[in-house]
């Protein structure tokens, strides 16, 4: 059985950034396992611009952003295997994978970085009644067909869900000659970035209907039309508000789910809120030496933050495999980070103050739209941060930073609380 210090599951943005960072932190024996025919993951089909302002100080398209990291992986001579599906990871970090050339094989890993990304919620998960004709695609599947295969999945399109992929696809389909009639969103606010509403919908006069959903799909062979209805506060359609649309395509952009079947298979504990692993400050899961980053950990809006997070996971994994004393390796006492009063979750959800880096980023999402609220951080009872934010919405990830030197001043610290407070 081959052995590597670090095996990275997934060669998308998270896996690539983790690999580069681990290598630069002094670990040489690294292997990336990627199931697709090339590195870069979902970025290869995200041909729009808007990536990289944080990371590279310039605006790049998805493939260009991925290209920058792939170049670094090549330069650093990091090993990777393409066309390779990871079938199983055991709790003692034996990775079973498969491809056409090597067949079914096992690798022993010193540390594992989970970077498998996420998948789209399907129609089934929404329980939309109606027929099951051709012409219902998740936005990402349509994105692949249009951007990678050059195929047009439809000509008259309705989009359900205003997540970023849905918004981006509204523009993409329009620019490829399709007519996008409407984007409907179940919630009273969009799940996507504000700028995508401007440049993907407003620019092309595509209406966005908030608090609306699809209540019927017509067409037995191919979609022939759908019915939209307004919903009440609980999300139930309001009778009498139905509007019929003629269309041959329904695109769904109704949420992303971290892809954690491998993680749960090896015993990694998952959060009910994020559906991703529960991690400490090192982005290490409940299994020592198993780290997670990117969309498998929690769904991000911006790849720049994925890269940043993954770089931390890479550094931490390198430190884990290089360290000789148990204390710096993993485990140890954790200070819980509690997400309350509008804060849905935090990543990480616990911190080992001794082991943390000088500055710790804690990312979180809020549960609704909040205007002129304060993000507050409490160390036990004492408020140490109180920062005003003009607007916060569930579609946009937020973060706070914690300084090690500040936390060290509280030797008996039990709980760090992150919450929203009124002015």
């Amino acid at each position, binding site marked *: 059985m081959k052995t590597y210090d670090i095996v990275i599951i997934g060669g998308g943005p998270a896996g690539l950034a983790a690999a580069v960072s681990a290598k630069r932190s002094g670990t040489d024996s690294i292997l*990336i396992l990627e199931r697709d*025919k*090339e590195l870069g993951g979902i970025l*290869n089909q995200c*041909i*729009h*611009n*808007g990536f990289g*302002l944080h990371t590279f100080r310039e*605006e*790049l*398209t*998805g*493939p*260009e952003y991925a*290209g920058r990291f792939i170049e670094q*992986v*090549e330069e650093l*001579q*990091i*090993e*990777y*295997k*393409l*066309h390779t599906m990871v079938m199983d990871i055991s709790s003692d970090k034996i990775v079973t994978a498969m*491809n*056409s*050339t090597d067949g079914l094989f096992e690798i022993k890993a010193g540390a594992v970085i989970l970077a498998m990304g996420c998948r789209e919620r399907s129609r089934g998960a929404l329980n939309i009644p109606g027929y099951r004709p051709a012409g219902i695609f998740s936005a990402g599947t349509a994105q692949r067909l*249009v*951007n*990678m*295969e*050059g195929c047009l999945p439809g000509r008259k399109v309705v989009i359900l869900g205003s997540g970023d992929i849905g918004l981006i696809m509204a523009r993409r389909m329009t*620019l*490829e000659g399709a007519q996008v009639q409407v984007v409907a969103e179940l919630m009273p606010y969009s799940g996507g*970035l*504000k*700028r995508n*509403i*401007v*440049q993907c919908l407003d*620019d092309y006069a595509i209406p966005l209907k908030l608090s609306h959903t699809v209540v019927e799909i017509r067409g037995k062979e191919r979609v022939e039309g759908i019915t939209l209805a307004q919903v009440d506060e609980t999300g139930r359609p309001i009778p009498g508000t139905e509007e019929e649309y003629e269309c041959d395509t329904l695109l769904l952009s109704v949420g992303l789910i971290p892809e954690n079947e491998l993680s749960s298979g090896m015993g990694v504990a998952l959060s009910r809120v994020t559906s991703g692993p529960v991690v400490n400050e090192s982005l290490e899961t409940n299994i020592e030496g198993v780290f997670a980053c990117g969309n498998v950990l929690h769904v991000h*809006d*911006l790849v720049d933050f994925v890269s940043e997070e993954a770089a931390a996971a890479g550094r931490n994994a390198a430190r884990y495999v290089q360290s000789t004393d148990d204390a710096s390796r993993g485990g140890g006492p954790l200070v819980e980070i509690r997400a309350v009063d509008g804060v849905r979750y935090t990543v990480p959800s616990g911190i080992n103050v001794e082991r943390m880096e000088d500055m710790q980023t804690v990312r979180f999402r809020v549960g609704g739209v909040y205007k002129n609220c304060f993000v507050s951080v409490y160390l036990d009872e004492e408020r140490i941060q109180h920062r005003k934010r003009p607007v916060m919405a569930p579609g*946009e990830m937020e973060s706070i930073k914690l300084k090690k030197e500040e936390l060290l001043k509280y030797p008996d610290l039990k709980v760090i609380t992150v919450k929203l407070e009124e002015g």
Partner: protein
Amino acid sequence: MGKRELICIGCPMGCPVTVEMNGDEIVSVSGNTCPRGDAYARKEVTNPTRIVTSTVKVEGSCVEMVSVKTKEDIPKDKIFDCVRALKGLTVKAPVRIGDVILADAAGTGVDVVATRNAWPSCHKEAECQQAVDGS
């Protein structure tokens, strides 16, 4: 005095920006967090522009399509002209990021460039795999 309310698209923050106008003249820009927002707002009310991204077919490569973009932003009303100019265009591998795919797209003076690499296809899948396998 007129007022235009905008959302800045310069970065993912999406700042709400207000432009005060006196006829065609910009009196003030407010609400932006950074200079990019000021620049965006001034352009948006006078000559709105966008980067356009698309794809063109590539021959002789492992991939079907090469993604492309306008090297700089072009006037908003030229977007469809630019995309139409790409219709039916096919390029040959190899293509590298930054290669000019279409010069002076739709008379904008802006080139359309490749945003991904497309290497020539290999004769055998196995060799192709070895060639791309690291080390």
